[in-house]
């Protein structure tokens, strides 16, 4: 029996809820307070909690650092890509209302997509910062 049974069981119950809450904050940002910045931080917080309980190796098996680094760039690229897409659709950079036939639909779509880009970048950057610092502690222990 491993130690910290209460912590492990409690974290296993909490982490899915935190991840789900991050997604809620992400995709409900049009109707309630929230958005990509907050969602990314909450998503990263779930992984930090997982690391604190189960260790850095376990979390890096689940979410490899290379994937995190790629995602942090992909989020920003998604944001820029939406802006360029609006230019190709006949509008200005980041002018979402040309993205769909209905201006409101286009605006909503553009906002959801760029918020997704923001969330991906913020979450991935925070996770990779955490990996950097946590990895250094391990180096010093060796």
């Amino acid at each position, binding site marked *: 029996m491993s130690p910290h049974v209460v912590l492990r069981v409690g974290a296993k119950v909490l982490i899915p809820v935190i991840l789900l809450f991050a997604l809620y904050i992400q995709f409900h940002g049009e*109707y309630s307070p929230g958005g990509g910045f907050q969602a990314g931080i909450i998503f990263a917080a779930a992984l930090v909690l997982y690391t604190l309980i189960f260790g850095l190796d376990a979390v890096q098996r689940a979410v490899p650092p*290379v994937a995190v680094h790629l995602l942090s760039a992909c*989020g920003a690229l998604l944001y820029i890509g939406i802006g360029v897409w609006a230019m190709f659709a006949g509008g200005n950079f980041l002018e979402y209302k040309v993205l769909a036939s209905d201006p409101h639909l286009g605006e909503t779509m553009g*906002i959801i997509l760029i918020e997704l880009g923001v969330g991906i970048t913020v979450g991935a950057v925070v996770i990779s910062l955490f990996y950097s610092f946590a990895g250094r502690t391990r180096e010093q222990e060796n």
Partner: protein
Amino acid sequence: MLMGIFSLLAASLYVLLDAVDVAADRSRRGRRGVDHPDARGAGADDQRGEGARRQHNLLALVVVLITGGALIYGTMDMPNFADPEAPAHQHVAPRYVQDSVDEIGIPNMVTSVLASYRGLDTLGEVLVIFSAGVAVLLLLGAGTYRRRPRPPRKRLQ
């Protein structure tokens, strides 16, 4: 007490910079008091440096006071907190409040302003966060590979 706070901050900085030996030196000096002559035997260069810095303290204080006074004087022109007549609430804010739901089609006007009206600004924020992350990765490493342990540093004294 101020010196204690300073030496604690300096020690934390040195620990962050991986110079634990310097940090220990700093905190030891802080405990004994920087002014005490016994505590300042860490090296002639260091000692001279602190002595030189001490002479400039008065000038630095004057500069800080003048700068702070100018900043505080600058705040006199600012509108009162939550003043509805403030320029910030006269320019584009009424349009956001009244028309954003019709123009954008989503009820949360904060999100409308952040993502649509000020989309380029938010793009800049995202790029700032991204480049900060890249900078930290460059400085600290990705934390994925283990370097061989460094040889022990030479102590200062």
